[in-house]
């Protein structure tokens, strides 16, 4: 059985060739991945495995950057770099900020 990420040969509609430039937060996701790879915290295959373990629903309902930030955070939790408690506390704290956007 092929994985949900394996899209080759599936039917799909027309390609949206009009381009969307990456936004700042999307570039930040790429920057995090680049730094974590360079620091030896994450490997390219670990990132791929995490993307392939998000589940079909999360994978297909998310954008590219959204998938990647989920994969990064899952991997960091799995490897014990950050904890679930720390992460949920920080997310709640961001919600309480008056102006949370950096």
């Amino acid at each position, binding site marked *: 059985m092929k994985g949900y990420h394996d899209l080759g040969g599936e039917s799909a509609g027309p390609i949206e060739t009009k381009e969307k430039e990456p936004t700042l937060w999307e570039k*930040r996701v790429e*920057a995090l991945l680049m730094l974590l790879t360079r*620091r030896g915290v994450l490997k390219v295959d670990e990132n791929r495995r995490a993307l392939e373990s998000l589940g079909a629903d999360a994978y297909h309902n998310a954008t590219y950057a959204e998938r990647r930030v989920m994969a990064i955070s899952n991997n960091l939790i799995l490897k014990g770099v950050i904890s679930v408690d720390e992460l949920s506390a920080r997310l709640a704290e961001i919600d309480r900020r008056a102006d949370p956007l950096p």
Partner: protein
Amino acid sequence: MSEHHDHDHEAPRRHRHPLQPDADDTLTYHRKLEIAVRELLIEKGIFTADDVRAAIEELDGRTPDRGSRVVARAWVDPEYKALLLKDARKACESLGFDMDLFDVTLTVVENTPKVHNVIVCTLCSCYPRMLLGLPPSWYKSRAYRSRMVKEPRVVLKEFGLELPEDVTVRVHDSTADLRYLVLPMRPEGTAGMSDRLVTRDSMIGVALAQRPR
């Protein structure tokens, strides 16, 4: 979300306008996740805020110009072209491009009058970032990833490229460990012209390198 809040209790801020006014101002769950993860990693000393800024600057500086220089050199230097097709990493490093981003193999595939090459990544969005920068939005799209391997001529037509029937179309499906770059054919009558002829799309294979109009 919060522009009408009273900020009197806060330190004055220099930037009250968004950096990118084009729809970058909605705080979704995933954006919060990015902020949270980044802040935690900075606090743990994995990297600094300035490292993140510098990394974005580096990403912005990595553009298809690199690929264009490689192709333009291969067009004028047969020895270089032979090296590029045999050991693309070495050929790129010899022009001073850092290839350290990932430990991946780069393979350059050459277009000829009889063979047209095009690249895709059906499994993810693997792309020769070291030479072309971040992939365009359509390269990451479900439609491109699904359909290119099944009906390449139809897809190419959507990009405005119609190839004669006697030209073989070869689709190269990239992986995390193996990335492709297309070496487009040099348009006729362009001797002495610069690498501007070599567009990003011609190195992906959804377009040809063309003479300036």
